[in-house]
């Protein structure tokens, strides 16, 4: 029905035309304004390898596993490995733990790493620059550096004294944690980028090798190979071994010396690895003697849990004083408020057929002595913020420099060193990107995340674990990986949930479209801050207006 065109227009004032409220710019009411921010997720912040975890979880959520894997490869070339051996500080920092449990980032990384191997995804090296880099050590630091340098287009040769590549991944971590075929496959992928690995090659004179090979820079990552030792009074009846050698024997399938009643001395992950290896080698009993109290022992608690499930006995607050024949005298220690306990003067003894010391490692400084400029302090090689040693064109990383001494940290060193070497080779300085504000739990609104308890990875049952070196922790499958990835709350970075757009009483937000996020209509925004409060991931900040 049409209005009467003969009569005049609509009544004055009491009837209004649509759209007229837009003349009223209510933005003038504000005292503070919302601003979209990208903040740093705690997982990214915590990762020693600097992975952009949130980004690759984002791809995994959508089922785009290759894109997720390629995002990991921007920072870390060994995801199948990391998904097995990394101690996942990302999960320790994950804000989801404040809601239910941390996202199983490690398990998703492993899934993606395995997917890549299954599908044969590759990374292409960059355009050749004509520069050559020498890497000493085919451990995680060296492999990581080699990978990144090849992406920058430089030629790379790795030298390693061992018969196989992998460094501590192979020679320090038992097979039940790190299946060797996966490691081999990931190393092979790096070699396929035209990285030459010269195995069984110990370098005695680094600078000469550099000169002869016409290398333009050197990256040293020889690790910490020498075991630390405490003196234990002993009559030499039973062997006192060191952990590194024991684990190396296990790798090389040498005859095991871990027989009978095995005592492992030390509270770190290496001690646990040795103990669990002993179980598998058929020790009658395996006891780990730890100096510190349980809560202070350096080994990761999940490692300890798995060890206990397998039958390892854990005795804390003891120090080994004396070995007579098969009897080991222990002094009981008392926990103090400090980290280090104090002696009590009380003793007890246990029986043992072999003792393994797992109290840490030192670097083999010998080869470094003829590289002038390399400074060693407290047994550790010193580097600056760009991974440079005091020697010209010589960089270093991994366990041999100040480090938390994990595989992940080493991978991070390799990347950082590669970036700095690359900058050096191009005559520039590498400027690390600026870091945003880290997202804490209180910045989130976790109501909006579905109730989704963490996926529990299948575990090999205990009987089988004890009798072989099969991988203990099972896989996620396709469904679970996506599920687990979707538990990520996308801390600090808009994931286009439309909440702000939906929740603004003044319709003061424009939706730009998928992938393009949103903008504020500051002409109308009254600064009520509902958007900031209801943003699930803390990607909106309220900023005072300049009045």
């Amino acid at each position, binding site marked *: *029905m049409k209005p009467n065109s003969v009569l005049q227009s609509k009544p004055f004032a*009491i*009837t*209004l*035309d*649509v759209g007229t409220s837009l003349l009223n710019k209510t933005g003038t009411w504000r005292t503070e304004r919302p601003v979209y921010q990208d903040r740093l997720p705690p997982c990214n912040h915590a990762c020693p390898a600097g992975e952009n975890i949130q980004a690759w979880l984002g791809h995994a959520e959508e089922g785009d596993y290759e894109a997720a894997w390629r995002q990991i490869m921007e920072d870390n070339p060994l995801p199948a490995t990391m998904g097995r051996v990394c101690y996942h500080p990302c999960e320790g920092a994950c804000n989801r733990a404040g809601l239910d449990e941390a996202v199983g980032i490690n398990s998703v990384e492993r899934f993606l790493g395995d997917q890549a191997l299954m599908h044969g995804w590759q990374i292409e090296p960059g355009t050749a620059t004509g520069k050559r880099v020498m890497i000493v050590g085919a451990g995680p630091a060296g492999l990581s550096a080699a990978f990144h340098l090849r992406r920058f287009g430089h030629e790379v040769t790795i030298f390693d004294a061992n018969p196989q590549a992998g460094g501590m991944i192979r020679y320090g971590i038992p097979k039940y944690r790190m299946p060797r075929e996966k490691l081999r496959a990931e190393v092979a992928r790096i070699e396929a980028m035209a990285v030459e690995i010269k195995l069984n090659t110990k370098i005695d004179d680094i600078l000469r090798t550099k000169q002869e090979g016409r290398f333009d820079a050197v990256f040293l990552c020889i690790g910490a190979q020498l075991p630390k030792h405490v003196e234990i009074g002993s009559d030499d009846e039973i062997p006192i071994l060191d952990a590194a050698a024991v684990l190396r024997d296990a790798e090389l399938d040498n005859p095991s010396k871990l027989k009978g009643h095995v005592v492992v001395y030390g509270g770190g992950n290496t001690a646990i690895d040795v103990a669990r290896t002993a179980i598998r080698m058929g020790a009658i009993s395996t006891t780990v003697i730890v100096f510190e109290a349980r809560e202070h022992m350096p080994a990761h608690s999940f490692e300890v849990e798995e060890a206990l499930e397998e039958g390892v006995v854990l005795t804390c607050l003891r120090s080994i004083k004396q070995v007579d024949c098969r009897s080991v005298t222990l002094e009981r220690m008392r926990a103090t408020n400090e980290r280090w306990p104090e002696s009590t003067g009380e003793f007890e003894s246990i029986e043992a057929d072999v003792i393994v010391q797992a109290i840490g490692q030192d670097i083999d400084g010998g080869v470094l002595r003829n590289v002038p400029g390399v400074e060693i302090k407290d047994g550790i090689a010193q580097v600056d913020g760009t991974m440079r040693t005091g020697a010209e064109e010589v960089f270093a990383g991994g366990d041999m420099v100040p480090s938390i001494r994990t595989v992940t940290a080493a991978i991070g060193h390799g990347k950082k060193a590669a970036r700095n070497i690359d900058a050096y080779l191009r005559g520039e300085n590498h400027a690390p990107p600026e870091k945003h504000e880290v997202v804490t739990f209180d910045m989130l609104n976790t109501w909006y995340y579905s109730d989704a308890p963490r996926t529990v990875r299948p575990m090999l049952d205990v009987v089988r674990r004890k009798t072989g070196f099969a991988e203990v922790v099972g896989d996620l499958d396709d469904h679970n990986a996506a599920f687990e990835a979707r538990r990520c709350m996308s801390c600090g970075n808009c994931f286009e949930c439309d909440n702000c757009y939906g929740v603004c009483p003044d319709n003061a937000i424009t939706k730009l479209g998928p992938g393009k996020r949103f903008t504020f209509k500051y002409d109308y925004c009254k600064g009520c801050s509902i958007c900031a409060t209801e943003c699930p991931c803390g990607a909106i900040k309220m900023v005072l207006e300049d009045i």
Partner: protein
Amino acid sequence: MLKQVEGSHAVAEAVALCRPEVISAYPITPQTHIVEDLGTMVKAGGIENCQFMLVESEFGALSACIGSSAAGARSYTATSSQGMLFMMEAVYNASGMGLPIVMTVGNRAIGAPINIWNDWGDSMSARDSGWLQLFAETNQEAVDVHIQAFKLAEELSMPVMVCMDGFILTHAYARIDIPNQAQVDEFLPPFQPRQVLDPAAPLSMGAMVGPEAFTEVRYLAHHKQLEALELIPKQAAEFEAIFGRDSGGLVKSYEAEDAETVVVTMGSVIGTMKEVLTGMREDGISIGGLTIRSFRPFPREALREALKHAKRVIVFEKSLAVGMGGIVAMNLRMALQDFPIRVHSAIGGLGGRPITRVNLRRMFEKGIQDQLEEPHFHDINMDVVNREIEREQVERRSGAIAENILHDVGVVAAAKAI
């Protein structure tokens, strides 16, 4: 077609002929028969495309019409007395919004004290609202004016109330010529709203208007009524051309053109008055009568024209502004203030008090002598009143005046007398 029917029923038939689309109905004496008859017609299928709503109050009744009219439907309701008061918010709202609703008011006194009989109190309470107020003299005229009312309302885009004396007209049987559908359709085209709620052309009706524009809005409503002063006679002429009757218009004269004294009134009482006036004229007295058909808009110019030769006017009305006096008288005095005419104010028939030829004649004669009180309360029992006034001054008898008077004149007194 000629029919011998009750006034209410005739009105119902007239409204039905106007093709209403929404009728809202709430009972109140004395209009109830109108809506009952309309309801029956709708139920029997006698009015096409019409929704008959049985509402929960008069406030609901007019509110529903506001909604339906705003949505472009021809809308109608009826009320009286208390019902008018109950819907008063909506009355002002409908005119403020300019919605062409037609409403019948079966004129009835307003309480307290509760009284179901005829006077103009209800219509008077809405006289400032902006509604057009048309008074019918006879049931025939009621029928005719209703038909004119729809056209008037829709052309102006303003609501119209058609006022007819309760019981006297509503419940009286008379011979009435009910028009046929073809005539009505010729006179009254389909409703074309000035503004309408329609998803095809959205708008917001009923904004809040502040000091900066309110005056202008009110002026425009006032101006609309002034426009109506032109439109009402025009439509009455159009009506006569089709239906052959002179109904409606602004004022109607009964031998007033040359009279020295003119009695001015509204509604049905002119019927009784005509007999008195005819008798007095036969006795050589120069007297005539004038009814105001359109009370709102107040036909200032038409009255001045009609009364310019008179020496005196006696306004007779069934309404009282308590503390002031006659309402129609006030309005007329304002219109004639620069004329050298004496205007007497007589108030009578309140609450249905019978008006007789005898007491009318007496009153007119007194008026001609210029001996009427100001205002004159027609047929009042001053003994009862004086007794009550004295009593109040002496005793502080608690209770309502009405109850006290009933003690004197009503059932109680009668019982005491036994």
